[in-house]
């Protein structure tokens, strides 16, 4: 396992460097932020001064060099918008999104495994049809629409949940997580169902049944672990996609997470924060990919065996 991890980390280094570069150019593409930060009537001198202070007057290669040197020291500069260190802002926002995404994936996977397995156990039964239809619908509902509906229905009309915000008890998690959840859940139910159907029709399942195993034992003891590989892959990709969802959810519910931070820093041309945020996200995504591979290996001995090769 460890040589495998080491190899994966080394092979992530170059792509990560590409991300570092990409983020830099992505940020520069948004143009000079001078208009946003200076008074409307700022003079040419003031503009030049501002640019110089922020290092925007240097040539792009020079800016890139400075950025790389600083990044190597894990210094991502200071936010133009708030004057705080970018790293600090990003690290403040990151756990919020991580928890949101983590809870979402956990619930999505658990829920999808249960629902998908139930559906797969009796294909084309009413349970299966309802589960399939609901999951397909869930996967195709625009998330912002769902969020606003949730606020209006559960927040205002029924009054069960707070409308938004991060101040309060566990109930504040419900709507944001539900919003983030619908699509991954919908997709995963279908994936779990599909691969469970395949697994449940496999001969080893027949053999297990011939040993007198109960349906629970058949599903969870035999089929599930065989069905888990595609589920893991898809779950990994969905988790990556949660960054997109987080942008919407955090915007609507006013959560100070990294998605909101990124969109704000784009809109505010806050390069330092944007760079730090995207880079941290990218590192997380790489780590996630490695985690998915590790899970693959844990779930399937054949993969495990192939790893050292």
């Amino acid at each position: 396992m460890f040589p495998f991890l080491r190899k994966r980390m080394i092979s992530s280094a170059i792509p990560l460097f590409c991300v570092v570069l990409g983020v830099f150019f992505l940020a520069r593409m948004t143009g000079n932020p001078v208009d946003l930060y200076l008074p409307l009537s700022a003079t040419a001198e003031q503009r030049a001064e501002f640019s110089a202070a922020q290092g925007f007057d240097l040539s792009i290669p020079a800016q890139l060099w400075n950025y790389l040197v600083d990044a190597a020291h894990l210094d991502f500069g200071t936010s133009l918008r708030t004057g705080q260190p970018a790293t600090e802002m990003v690290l403040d926002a990151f756990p919020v999104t991580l928890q949101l995404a983590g809870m979402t994936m956990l619930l999505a996977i658990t829920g999808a495994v249960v629902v998908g397995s139930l559906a797969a156990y009796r294909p084309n039964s009413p349970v299966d049809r309802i589960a399939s239809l609901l999951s397909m619908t869930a996967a195709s509902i625009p998330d912002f629409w769902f969020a606003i509906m949730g606020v209006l229905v559960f927040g205002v009309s029924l009054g069960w949940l707070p409308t938004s915000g991060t101040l309060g008890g566990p109930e504040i998690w419900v709507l944001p997580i539900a919003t983030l959840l619908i699509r991954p859940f919908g997709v995963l139910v279908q994936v779990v169902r599909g691969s469970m159907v395949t697994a449940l029709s496999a001969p080893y399942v027949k053999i297990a049944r011939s040993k007198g195993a109960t349906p629970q034992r058949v599903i969870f003891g035999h089929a599930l672990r065989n069905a888990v590989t595609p589920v893991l892959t898809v779950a990994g990709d969905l988790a990556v996609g949660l960054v997109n969802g987080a942008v919407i959810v955090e915007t609507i519910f006013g959560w100070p997470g990294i998605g909101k931070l990124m969109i704000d820093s784009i809109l505010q041309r806050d390069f330092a924060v944007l760079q730090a945020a995207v880079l941290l996200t990218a590192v997380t995504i790489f780590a996630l990919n490695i985690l998915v591979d590790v899970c693959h290996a844990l779930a399937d001995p054949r993969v495990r065996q192939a790893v050292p090769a």
Partner: protein
Amino acid sequence: MSREDPTTADDTDDTGPGADRPTADRPPAARATPHRASWWRMLGRDRAASVAAVVLTLVTLVALFGRLVIGDRAQRQDLDASLRPPSVGDGVYGLLGTDVLGRSVLARLVDAAATTLSVAVPAVLCSLVIGAALGLWAGYHGGRRESVALRVADVILSFPSLLIAVVVLYVFSPSALNIVLILAVARIPVYLRTARAEAAELRSRLFVDAARTFGTPSRDIIRRHILPIALPTLLTVATLDFCFVMLTESSLSFLGIGIQPPDVSWGLMVAQGRQYLQSAWWITVLPGLAIVFTTVSATVLAAWARIATDPAQRWRLTLPTKRRGASAAVPPELIP
């Protein structure tokens, strides 16, 4: 690899596939004709799939010819007729009510169908073609080419696609073409990975080896031997990607940088109508339903087509739905 092993069907159920199964004395060519004929029959047997096919056909027809029928009705504003609820009294165009600018929601739905599809279809096709080509090439050759392609996919995946879209669409103008390009690039890794996995598995198969020993150029091997096998999976992923593309386009509209007026897409309608959710539900709910119906239909049909194109499973489709056994609604390869 999750495709059902053909042997599974054989040793558990040796009469199952019944008439459709190739037998030794029937040449494969002879099988083609009855199959084509039975496609319709198979579709007809599956109520869900036939409904889905009807919905998709309808959507396509509306997208292709709808504009000819409605003319400029989708753009025609009448500020005095703002926010009329659906009613039968206001003629055809008032059937689904009007939006805040007094435009017919029905006409806009029709107009938006064309725009929505003209974004979703090219975006999906671009990413499918590029991603599949790269993935098959990488997977077939393996080695360094494979790892380079995979790392490229890693890099693309690790940029949050919505944010790239925001940057690009704000910096270059938010045109439909740019949206298509962004979505296409963002989805390339998915096809790349899927195609690579298929090709990597197939490259060691006997028939590929055989082709190689005959000196067939690798381009031809990929095209003739690997692509046809990988295609059903790729097409399924592509079908399901429509959903993603439509939703992302909608999210972009929510952020204000999707399709720009006077063009209109379902996503834009949902996004713009969200503020009228309490007062005029029809503006946002109807296009939302259009998205849901279209994507659910695409998903159902994709699942059906996947089984229909898999010789080991096709027979299941010919059964009445109640006793259809292991028909995967969505293939495990689905990567949304």
